């Protein structure tokens, strides 16, 4: 059966009946095939994430021997989100399973591992995990190129993070304490989140401070350190204990003066439980000007996130 002998409308109908992953595999077979699929399935790939500015493909490999590849619907950093921001809506592409009894013989990946919730499952031997994931990534990269971002979600800092083309890493972890010693020094993280308060600050030279976006639970000491050394773009910081406003004032003044934190676009500091946020003191200390409400306030534009 020669697929190319079918009229293009028939080919399109056949492609419409394939899952996204099957189309991606098919497009890896030849350049011509990729061209045909891209032109006939434009609508499908455009509608995947219609409202999202930056399209992402996420590899989420937990502590178990299973991982998911999916396209999340929501942006990775949500304002006002102080909770564990697991993506709730997503379009699954593939499930990956590494298992000893994998029936692969000479193949790197067993593509015939069935379906889970209507999306394909592939499996591979644990010893081949890195190569298998690289092969899967190459297929996705071959198809989407750099039109999307590729994010690896690390939920356990002891697990190996593969080195793949254009891959950014999210660290979503319960506790950040002692992570420095075991987590690979590169690459620079895209997002870092924790659940339990961080009690041991990173060293000032740590490249964790270069993380693009952070959503962290901290105590007073670690909050001050983060405010002092953070070099990324966005931060939501929740402090559990009593809070020294001096650190925040110093931070804002450095930010305002332009001597540091040039990349910072968004900062949210939240005081948990009964801690009173000393708003007036802080506003006075950082020299916020009071406006005459009868006059037109000056306008200011911030970069879109």
């Amino acid at each position, binding site marked *: *059966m*020669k*697929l*190319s*002998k*079918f*009229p293009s*409308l*028939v080919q399109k*109908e*056949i*492609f*419409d*009946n*394939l*899952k996204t992953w*099957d189309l991606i*595999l*098919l497009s*890896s*077979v*030849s*350049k*011509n*095939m990729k061209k045909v699929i891209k032109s006939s399935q434009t609508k499908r790939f455009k509608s995947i994430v219609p409202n999202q500015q930056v399209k992402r493909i996420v590899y989420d490999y937990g502590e178990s021997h299973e991982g998911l590849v999916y396209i999340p619907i929501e942006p990775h950093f949500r304002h006002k989100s102080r909770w564990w921001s697991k993506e709730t809506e997503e379009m699954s592409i593939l499930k990956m399973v590494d298992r000893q009894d994998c029936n692969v013989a000479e*193949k790197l*990946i067993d*593509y*015939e*591992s*069935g379906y889970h919730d209507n999306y*394909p499952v592939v499996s591979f031997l644990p010893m081949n995990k890195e190569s298998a994931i690289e092969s899967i990534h190459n*297929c996705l990269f071959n198809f989407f190129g750099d039109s999307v971002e590729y994010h690896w979600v690390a939920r356990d800092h002891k697990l190996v993070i593969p080195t793949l083309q254009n891959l950014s890493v999210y660290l979503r972890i319960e506790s950040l304490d002692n992570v420095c010693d075991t987590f690979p020094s590169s690459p620079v993280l895209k997002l870092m989140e924790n659940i339990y308060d961080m009690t041991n600050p990173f060293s000032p030279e740590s490249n964790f401070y270069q993380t693009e976006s952070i959503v962290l639970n901290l105590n007073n000491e670690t909050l001050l350190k983060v405010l002092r050394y953070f070099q990324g773009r966005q931060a939501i910081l929740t402090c559990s204990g009593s809070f020294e406003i001096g650190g925040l004032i110093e931070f804002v003044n450095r930010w305002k003066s332009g001597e540091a934190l040039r990349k910072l676009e968004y900062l949210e500091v939240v005081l948990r439980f009964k801690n009173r946020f000393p708003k007036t003191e802080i506003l006075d200390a950082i020299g916020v000007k009071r406006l005459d409400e009868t006059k037109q306030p000056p306008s200011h534009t911030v970069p879109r996130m």
Partner: protein
Amino acid sequence: MSSTEQGTSSAAPAEPTTAPESAAAPEVPESFYYVHGKDKVVHKVSAGALQHSALIHGMISNLGYTEEQAKANPFPFENIDGDILQMVVDWCNQHKGKPTPPEDTNLPKQKEKLFDLVLAVNYLEIKELLTYCCKQVAMMVKGKSPEEIREIWMIPTDAEDEAAEKEAKKRAGKEAAGETAAAAGDAK
């Protein structure tokens, strides 16, 4: 030309012998048409069954044949193998006047038969059957590796595509040169 009337004898539902008591209007006799494929075997098919095919339905509407004329002039589909046309006729008869189910499990499993059926159904414009066939073709590569997909659907490699493209260009160049020479000869 040999002539059989397989369409009505094998798969078409039996016609009621008596009209239902409740029916007020007299039953209109069903009209039949005739089609043949590459093997010239003629199939008698009811107009109701042929409604599935947009192509044949259009031909019937345009020609306005009487039953006698239709019998004398079967629709010729020389590009469709006899056994494939038989499958199509059977399917049309089985689904005559019925809503089509979400799946059809009676499609051929052999690759080449399915391939020919897809081309025939596409040509005859039988939308529902084409949908089933395309689903079945898509199923063939589910859970397969890229190499297996290449083999099943006979997809050329990049090198083969490039070679074919070069060959086509070469041929086109030769043809163009031939036409120019012929035109020059004519001018003399």
